[in-house]
């Protein structure tokens, strides 16, 4: 706290406080309850992630096998047969599921169409249960602060009530040393809770599969986040305990603050962000896209300027006068051009939609200044690779993969299928194995943390503001 506090005194107070807190029977009960919840959350989350990954792996293998085992087929038939992209369950998804339950996990990829990712878990549940999924991250970021409050709300009040505070302050201890000692004592008493949390989180990360995360830095950062967040709660709890003399009022104030940070502010911020910048609906999005795609050009219309130009260019390049004389299949040339145009239009609309989603997200994140827990949860999801950006990354990569394989098929169609009796021909099945499999990537840590400045600022203020307030706080018996 301040240089004036003699270290041995601080440590003595801290040890006494920690011993007192840990000897309380209610602390033991709380620890048992906490451990039980955490173990339940860890085991179930790990089970769920393992099961989901196993299911996905099985389907991914099945879909690949089905792709390669296709018989001789016309390439455009294959483009409509299509394939599936599965959103991977990352190694940290069991620790912090983030928004994963709210995004579709499977996307059907085919020619001409950008299908939505479907089957989000949330559509099959009730919205009454949206306060958070009971994951290790939820226990760490939402429930552990409550433990801090329960243990710490009477740190000073107890002393004041029993009259010991007067005694302590009359000795040459000083208020700074007293507060520092109390804070350290609370931190020591929280160690068993933190140890249980660390063990359970480690268990989840190791057993949920998907390999140990690429980087220890992620785990270190998650630990640091949780520690900083809890430190803020400890400072706030101590501050309230000093300022509100009755333990009942201190508890009520702290739980109200907790409820605001965990329940009220996040939801209210979400509602306001949605109202401020509403997303288009699927019907509106698709209607605008369809109108624009239609305006791009109509391959069926012989007078269409775009496709007339394409024909002229293609004929000129090969020095012929009729499409029938071309060495390549002109139908496939048209198809490839159409795909290129529609994909570009879709990308523009999609990025505009994403821009809105990210503006909404930024609005919510600004509210972290009022509710730092909100910011910490956002950071935790970002580090765990389970946030909105991870979902959008998957959707972009799935679209890029769709475009690539459809154009690869269009190229085969152009070069291997004759223009005459086009649909009556088939391409040898030997070609199917040439197609690369969909390989979704994971954002690096730096990239994953883009756009989280407000969250970091909120976390810093969460520690600095109560810290400074405590440093200036008078302690009166």
């Amino acid at each position: 706290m301040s240089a004036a506090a003699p270290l041995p005194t601080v440590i003595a107070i801290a040890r006494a406080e920690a011993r007192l807190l840990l000897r309380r029977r209610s602390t033991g009960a709380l620890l048992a309850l906490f451990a039980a919840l955490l173990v339940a959350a860890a085991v179930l989350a790990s089970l769920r992630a393992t099961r989901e990954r196993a299911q996905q792996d099985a389907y991914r293998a099945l879909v690949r096998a089905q792709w390669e085992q296709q018989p001789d087929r016309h390439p455009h038939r294959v483009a409509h047969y299509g394939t599936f992209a599965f959103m991977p369950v990352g190694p940290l998804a069991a620790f912090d599921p983030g928004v994963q339950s709210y995004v579709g996990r499977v996307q059907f990829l085919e020619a001409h169409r950008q299908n939505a990712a479907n089957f989000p878990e949330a559509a099959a549940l009730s919205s009454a249960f949206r306060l958070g999924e009971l994951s290790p991250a939820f226990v760490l970021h939402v429930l552990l602060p409550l433990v801090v409050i329960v243990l710490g709300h009477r740190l000073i009040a107890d002393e004041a009530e029993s009259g010991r505070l007067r005694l302590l302050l009359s000795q040459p201890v000083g208020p700074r040393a007293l507060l520092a000692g109390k804070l350290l004592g609370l931190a020591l008493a929280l160690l068993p809770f933190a140890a249980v949390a660390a063990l359970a989180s480690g268990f989840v990360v190791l057993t949920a599969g998907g390999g140990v995360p690429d980087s220890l830095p992620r785990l270190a950062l998650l630990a640091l986040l949780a520690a900083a967040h809890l430190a803020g709660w400890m400072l706030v709890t101590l501050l309230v305990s000093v300022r509100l003399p009755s333990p009942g009022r201190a508890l009520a104030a702290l739980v109200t603050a907790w409820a605001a940070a965990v329940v009220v502010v996040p939801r209210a911020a979400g509602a306001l962000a949605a109202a401020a910048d509403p997303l288009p609906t699927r019907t509106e999005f698709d209607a605008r896209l369809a109108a624009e795609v239609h305006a791009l050009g109509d391959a069926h219309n012989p007078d269409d300027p775009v496709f007339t130009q394409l024909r002229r260019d293609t004929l000129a390049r090969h020095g012929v006068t009729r499409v029938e004389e071309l060495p390549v299949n002109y139908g496939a040339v048209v198809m490839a051009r159409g795909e290129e145009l529609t994909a570009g239009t879709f990308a523009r609309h999609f990025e505009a939609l994403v821009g809105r989603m990210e503006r909404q997200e930024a609005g919510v994140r600004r509210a972290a200044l009022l509710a730092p827990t909100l910011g910490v949860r956002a950071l935790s999801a970002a580090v765990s690779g389970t946030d909105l950006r991870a979902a959008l990354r998957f959707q972009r990569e799935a679209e890029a993969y769709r475009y690539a394989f459809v154009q690869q098929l269009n190229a085969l169609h152009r070069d291997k299928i004759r223009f005459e009796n086009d649909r009556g021909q088939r391409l040898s099945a030997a070609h199917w194995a040439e197609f690369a499999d969909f390989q979704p990537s994971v954002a690096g840590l730096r990239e994953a943390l883009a756009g989280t400045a407000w969250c970091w600022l909120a976390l810093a203020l969460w520690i600095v503001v109560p810290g400074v307030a405590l440093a200036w706080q008078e302690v009166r018996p």
Partner: protein
Amino acid sequence: MSGFGGLLTWELRRLARAGTARVALGLLFAAGLLALFAAGREVARHERELAAADPAYAAQMERIGKQFPAGGHAGYVAYYTFFPVRNPTPPLAVFSLGLRDVTPSVVWIRLLGLEGQLHESGIGNPVLQALGAFDLAFVLCALAPLVLLVLLHDVLSRDRAQGVLPLVVAQAGGLGRVFAARVLARFAAVATVAVALFAVGAAWHGVPVNGAALAWLGDALLQLACWTAIGALLAALATGVAATLAAAVSAWVVGVVLAPALINLATVTLHPVPEGLAITVAQRQETHAGWDRPKEDTFARFFALRPEWRDTPPVTGRFAWKWYYAMHQVGDASVAATAERYRARLVARAALLARLAWAVPPATAQLLLSRRAGTDLEAHLAFLDRVRAFHGEMQVHFFPAIFAERELPPTAWREFPRFVPPPSAPAAGGPGERVPLVVTVLLCAVFLPAALRRAARLAT
């Protein structure tokens, strides 16, 4: 009873003067107004989509008209035509959004295999969805209980701490009377805010105040009564101010945060729904396998499903639309059992939630309210059934022309089937679902006299 009425009035007046109560009730009312605004915006977004469906359909038909200026084969036209199936937001959705923020209000389907189209997601921001909707049901089921519990904690404890409880009891003529008057006054204050918010919301968003709306309000108040009973019991049992508050906020944390999170996890873990993936993958495989199979095989399977087309002449050329749609029908049929299992799993989830409601009645009050509002899972499944039925209607309309290899005139789309949503469905859930809440109130009421006798002993 005029004596008790006077006591109640006195307690109400005292509550109105208390700073904490005024701030807490004011904040609750403000949160309610925000909820009405936010849910109103969300419903307006859905209404916009519902209203946009018809113009979008008309624009699409105009494009198709240009594509087929002289008309076209029924199968070809149907291939390009998407039909909007609307799921109007029920009037009470503005109070209880339920699942409406994660389920689409309009599903666009073609005559192709339905199973690949049925579960198309709407557009939503997962970040906001994960935070949960801020609607009146949330305010009344999550925030109002906290206000109630905080208001209830000092029903006895403060007077006792100040040593004036015996005096107050003597003046009022019995501990039970003071206790009842104070508890009722607090319930009445919060219930008044709830009713006021309901009234403001009904006027603001034009919600008809009919039986269904009143049943919704009744259940919201019952849920508040349930928390009142819990808070009263805790207030009667605990001895100090701090202990009462600690017990009250613990009850809230368990009922509003912990229990729902546990129930959620239990439901998801005990009832996984792997069929979603299975349906999508299997349907595609089966549908497309038709291209490489002898046409007679596909038709044999199709005729088993649809014997009325058995007499259609065999396809001799490379392609025929009737063969194409038969493939899709066969693809759908191949996953019918899986689709049925998918639905059954979801129903099992809902049933499990209802059972768990018995363990923690207040935790599931929001669920009950979304059932009453017609925005719950069951209502969504009913909508999916309507989409299914409409797909059947589309087949009835198009198959005769497709099997007769008929060209449709350019004006044919005026006769195309249109989906007409049913008049708002009656609220789901019978009075039986209130039972857990009622039982909780009764249980608390049974234990209250004993707790009060103990409190009276301590007071004297």
